[in-house]
């Protein structure tokens, strides 16, 4: 067969070598994209922004039609919730003011809870299912840096993987593995918080794996809220991650793993907030040094 002549085999072989070299290059742990990649990302991102508006308009019409169907039922539910929320809002405002006053008297101004929000819009989602990444329309020029947390109104959706100048890629929580841990906590009264790490996403049960570090007396209950603890140094504390769905012992029976249902819907991410933690790690270290010096 003339198809596999020597010259062709040679070309395919060279192609294979280039492939291996390129993959090897991109799999190395590089924090920053090359300038060429950033340029391509920004150019395509700009065009995606143009295309995204009309496409979004059309999909919105269809979701609106869907929404009309169960408006009445939702309305009833929402009215009930609204009345509950009013009292909650009042209560939380009181607490916040009190907290601020107490902090002022203690001269604690920065907290790991504080963050600067950067509003962004999702302009595309990777068609390659394995990658679990979306592109947003804010980049380094807007102050986005690698590893910042990305949230929606419902909860955490992911973290910044690689920022370009005007766009950045966000890795969704569903694509997290053991290299992207989140330090998380379940808040309990009397300092009996349950601490642990979110160690990846289980595709079969569609839930995050929450490994509990400290054995606590009480068992976890279904429906308890898991929030970020801020101890990882990058994410601020108090970002909503999800709800406990099930608790299972690990294969050795030493620690327990909770299956967490993510709070945010990963398939309808449109407007997100990039979270820029006010208190950065360097600042923390500096303040600690000062304390020691005194």
């Amino acid at each position, binding site marked *: 067969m003339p*198809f596999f002549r020597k010259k062709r085999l040679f070309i*395919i072989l060279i*192609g*294979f070598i*280039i*492939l*291996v*070299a*390129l*993959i090897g*290059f*991109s*799999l190395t742990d590089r924090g920053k*994209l090359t300038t060429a*990649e950033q340029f*391509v*990302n920004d150019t*395509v991102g700009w*065009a*995606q922004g143009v*295309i*995204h508006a009309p*496409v*979004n308009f*059309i*999909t919105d019409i269809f979701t609106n039609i869907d929404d009309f169907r169960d408006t009445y039922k939702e309305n009833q539910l929402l009215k009930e919730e609204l009345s509950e929320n009013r009292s909650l809002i009042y209560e939380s405002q009181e607490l916040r003011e009190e907290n601020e006053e107490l902090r002022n008297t203690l001269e604690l101004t920065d907290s790991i809870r504080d963050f600067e929000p950067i509003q962004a819009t999702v*302009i*595309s*989602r*990777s*068609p*390659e*299912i*394995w*990658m679990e*990444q979306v*592109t947003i329309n804010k980049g380094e020029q807007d102050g986005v840096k690698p590893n910042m947390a990305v949230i929606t109104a419902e909860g955490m959706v992911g973290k910044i*993987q*690689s920022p370009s100048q005007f766009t950045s*890629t966000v890795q969704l929580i569903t694509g997290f593995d053991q290299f992207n841990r989140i330090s998380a906590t379940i808040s309990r009264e009397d300092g009996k918080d349950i601490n642990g790490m979110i160690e990846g996403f289980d595709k079969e049960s569609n839930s995050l794996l929450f490994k509990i570090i400290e054995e606590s007396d009480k068992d976890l209950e279904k429906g308890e809220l898991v929030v970020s603890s801020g101890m990882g140094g990058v994410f601020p504390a108090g970002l909503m991650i999800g709800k406990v769905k099930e608790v299972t012992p690990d294969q050795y029976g030493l620690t327990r793993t909770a299956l967490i249902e993510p709070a945010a819907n990963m*398939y*309808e991410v449109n407007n997100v907030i990039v979270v820029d933690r006010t208190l950065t790690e360097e600042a923390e270290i500096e303040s600690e040094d000062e304390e020691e010096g005194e």
Partner: protein
Amino acid sequence: MKRLYLPLFLFLFLILEGVALELLPASLIMSDYLIVPHWVFIFLVYLAIFYDEENTYFSVVYALAFGLLIDIVYTGILGVYMFSYGLITYIIHGVKKVLHGNFYVTVLLGLMGLALADISINGIFIVVGISDMLWKDYFTYRLLPTVISNLVFLLVLYPVMVKRLIRWSKEQLAGRNTI
């Protein structure tokens, strides 16, 4: 100016792939089936069959260029789409010499190409360690839905593109020997 049409079309499909998942109903995305749009590749198949002469390789060059673009924009791992699209387009270009380019041949080559390209991409991802799906699951949950949904796109594109591509091919490639 007319020379720019092909890259522009490819670029448009590249961008549309990024919003393709939003156009599908949510119930389909939430289900176990994984659908990956390969619209750029389908256009490359049309280029290989209807645009390229026997001794021109525009489709392969575009496959390499836009494969690399997909790698940069959507996966961040360079070379995977570039190699797969390039190789499969090259094979289709070779097979086309034996078969006459009509509707059935297009569907056949499109099906074959889609399956091979997706298997190649997934194979590389498994070797690299990004995907950990079993091959058995891969065939039912990813390959089959992906090929079928992309075939729909291929059929939609047929009446729109074929005549145009043949006309552009005659206008632009007449009197050229190789690239």
